[in-house]
C-alpha cells in the first residue's frame, strides 16, 4: 500500500472555527482505489475533513496532497475530487440530464459530446429514462443516483460522499449500499465515505477511520475495528460492547485494565460451561428481547455488572430463558479485548499508525 502514491495524504490537518477545533492534527493516507470510510458521531470532525479535502473550507494548518500534489491552497474547481452532497444539491432549474452534464459544460466540452457522456453516466446508474425530468420529480433514491452520476461523469480521481444515504429509508439504503460498492469497483477510483452509521461503514469499507473530537481514534479494516477495538470509544461506537472496568476485569477476567467483549461472544446457559479457556460468571436474567434473527438477553452478573448477550435464533431452538432465571454467562478468553486507556494526542497517533 505504501510503495505507490497514496490518493490522499493529510499531514497535520487542522481546522479551527473560532475557539472550536473541529479537526485536530489529522494525519491520514488513503490508497488509490480504496473504499475508505470516515465514521464518527456528529461533531466529530469527519465532515469537516471531507470539506477540507473538497476545498470548501480552508485548513487552519496542515497540508492536503492529492496523488502527491499539494492542493491545500487550491479552489474546489481546481481539484480532481468531486462530492456527492448529503442533500444531493441537484440544480432545481435544470433537467436531470443538464445536471449531469453541468461539470462537462463548465469545462467547455461541446454540447453534443457532453450530452452523450451525461446520457452514458445516467445509464450507468440506470436512469437513462429520466433525463428530461426535473430533480423535483424524482424520488430520493433516484436523486441520489443522479448526484452520483453528476459527480462521476467528470472522472474525478477521488469521490467524496457526505452521508449520501442518510436521507433514504432502510430498504433503499441497503440497496444503494450494494450499488455504491459496485459502482466503486467499476470505476476503480477512491471513494471517501462519511457516515455516522457504523453498520454502513462496516458493510462498505476497505478501511475505516473512527473520528471523535476532531481526531482519528482508530484506523483499520472493518474486522480490525470490530474484533480489536483499541479504545473504549471505538468499542462502544463500532457495534455494541460489554465493557469491563479495571475492578470488574480483575474480578471476572483475572487481569487488570479495561476490557470489552462483544454480545455475540457471550453465551447464556443454565449450567456452568466447562472448556479450555472458557470463563463464566453467574447472574440473573433481567430482560429477554426477541429480535427476529436473534435474541438479546440482558443479565445482571452477581459481580455487579450488567451484560448483554446476543444469541442466534438458529435451528437449535434454545430456550432463551425468562426474566429472573438464574443463569451462567460464559465467554472464551480469546474474545476478551484489552482496551487502551483514553488516548491523548501522541498515543492516539501511535495507535493509528500501528493499526495501519
Amino acid at each position, binding site marked *: 500500500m505504501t510503495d505507490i502514491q497514496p490518493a490522499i495524504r493529510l499531514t497535520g490537518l487542522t481546522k479551527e472555527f473560532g475557539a472550536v477545533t473541529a479537526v485536530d492534527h489529522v494525519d491520514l493516507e488513503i490508497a488509490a482505489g480504496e473504499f475508505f470510510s470516515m465514521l464518527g458521531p456528529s461533531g466529530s470532525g469527519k465532515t469537516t475533513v471531507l470539506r477540507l479535502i473538497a476545498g470548501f473550507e480552508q485548513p487552519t494548518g496542515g497540508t492536503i496532497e492529492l496523488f502527491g500534489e499539494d492542493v491545500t491552497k487550491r479552489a474546489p474547481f481546481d481539484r480532481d475530487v468531486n462530492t456527492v452532497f448529503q442533500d444531493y444539491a441537484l440544480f432545481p432549474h435544470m433537467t436531470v440530464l443538464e445536471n449531469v452534464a453541468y461539470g462537462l459544460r*463548465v469545462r467547455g466540452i461541446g454540447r453534443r459530446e457532453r450530452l452523450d457522456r451525461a446520457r452514458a453516466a445516467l445509464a450507468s446508474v440506470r436512469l437513462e429514462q429520466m433525463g428530461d425530468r426535473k430533480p423535483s420529480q424524482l424520488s430520493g433514491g433516484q436523486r441520489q443516483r443522479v448526484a452520483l452520476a453528476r459527480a462521476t461523469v467528470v472522472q474525478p480521481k477521488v469521490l467524496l460522499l457526505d452521508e449520501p444515504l442518510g436521507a433514504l429509508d432502510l430498504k433503499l439504503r441497503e440497496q444503494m449500499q450494494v450499488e455504491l460498492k459496485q459502482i466503486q469497483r467499476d470505476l476503480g477510483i477512491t471513494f471517501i465515505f462519511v457516515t455516522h452509521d457504523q453498520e454502513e461503514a462496516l458493510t462498505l469499507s476497505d478501511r475505516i477511520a473512527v473520528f471523535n473530537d476532531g481526531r482519528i481514534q482508530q484506523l483499520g479494516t472493518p474486522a480490525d475495528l470490530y474484533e480489536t477495538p483499541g479504545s473504549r470509544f471505538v468499542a462502544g461506537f463500532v457495534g455494541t460492547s460489554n465493557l469491563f472496568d479495571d475492578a470488574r476485569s480483575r474480578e471476572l477476567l483475572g487481569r487488570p485494565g479495561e476490557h470489552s467483549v462483544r454480545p455475540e461472544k457471550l453465551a447464556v446457559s443454565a449450567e456452568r460451561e466447562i472448556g479450555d479457556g472458557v470463563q463464566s460468571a453467574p447472574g440473573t436474567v433481567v430482560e429477554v428481547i426477541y429480535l427476529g434473527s436473534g435474541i438479546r438477553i440482558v443479565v445482571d452478573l452477581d459481580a455487579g455488572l450488567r451484560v448483554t448477550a446476543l444469541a442466534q435464533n438458529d435451528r437449535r431452538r434454545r430456550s432463551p430463558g425468562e426474566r429472573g432465571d438464574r443463569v451462567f454467562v460464559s465467554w472464551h478468553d480469546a474474545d476478551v479485548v484489552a482496551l487502551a486507556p483514553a488516548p491523548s494526542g501522541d498515543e492516539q497517533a501511535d495507535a493509528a499508525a500501528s493499526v495501519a
Partner: protein
Amino acid sequence: MTSAHVESRPRRTTARAGSAFLSTHPRTRLALLLAAPLFWLVIVYIVALALLLVTAFWSVDSFTGVITTEFTLDNIIEVVTGSLYQTVTLRTVGVALAVTIIDVVLALPIAFFMAKVATPRMQRVLLIMVLTPLWASYLVKAYAWRSVLSQDGILEWLLAPFGGHTPGYGLPATIITLSYLWLPYVILPIYAGLERVPDSLLEASGDLGGKTWPTLRLIVFPLILPAIIAGTIFSFSLSLGDYITVNIVGGTNQMLGNLVYTNVGAANNLPLASAIALIPIVIIFGYLFLVRRTGALDNL
C-alpha cells in the same frame, strides 16, 4: 381525584359558548375573519379603481366645469395621440427603466453579500441598515437629495476637485433620487431569493469545476431571476407613479403623475386625469403579463 374531576368539566361561560359555536361553524368563522380586509379590498380599492376607469370615459363641460356622465372616447384618444402625453409617457417609462436598472445593479452585490458572505450578525446589521431609510419620511429624503444635488451642495463640493459637477436639478437628479428611494424594495426580494438558494448548490457548482462567473451565470442568476423581477416590479411601478420627487429635484420636467395632479387640481378635469392615470396602470399590467410566467409573482 375530585379536584381533577372538577377541572376536567369547565364552567359554561358565554365566551366558551361562542368559541364552541365558531369551532363548529367554519363558514361563520371565515366570514368574521375576512369581513374587514374584504371590505377594504373590494370597496376601497377595487371600487375606486373601477370608478377611475369609468370616469376616464366621461367628460367635462369646458364652460361650466361640470362633469358630464356621457360615454365618450375623447379623453382616451387625446391621451394616446396627444404629443404631450406621448412625450411624458416615454420620459416616465425611461426614468422608471433607468431607476430599475440602477437599483438591480446596486442591489445584486449587496443582497449577495448579505445572503451568502456576511456572518449572521453582520447580516442582521445590514438588514437593519437597508430597512432604516424606509422608516424616514419620503419627503425628508427627497429634500435631502435636493440639498445634496444643489449647486452649492455636498455633491458639488465632493466632485469639484476632480473636475466633476453636480447634475443639478433635472431628469438625472430625478433618477438618482428615485433609485435611492426604491433601492430597499429591490434589495429585499433579491436577498430573500438568495437566502433560499442552498449554499450546497454553489459548492456543488464549484466542486464540478464551475468558477465564479459560470456559477453566477448558470446557477445563481436563473434561480434568483424571479426574485429580481419581483424587485423590478416594485421599483418600476413606484417610479411610474411618482410625481413628488420630480417636483422637488426634477427642475421643470414633468412625469405622468404631474399631469394627473395638474388635471385634477388646476385644470379641474377629472376625466382627463383619470385617462392619464390609466397609462401607468396599463403599462404595469403589461409588465406583469410579460413576467407572470417567470414565477416572479410568487416572489412578491
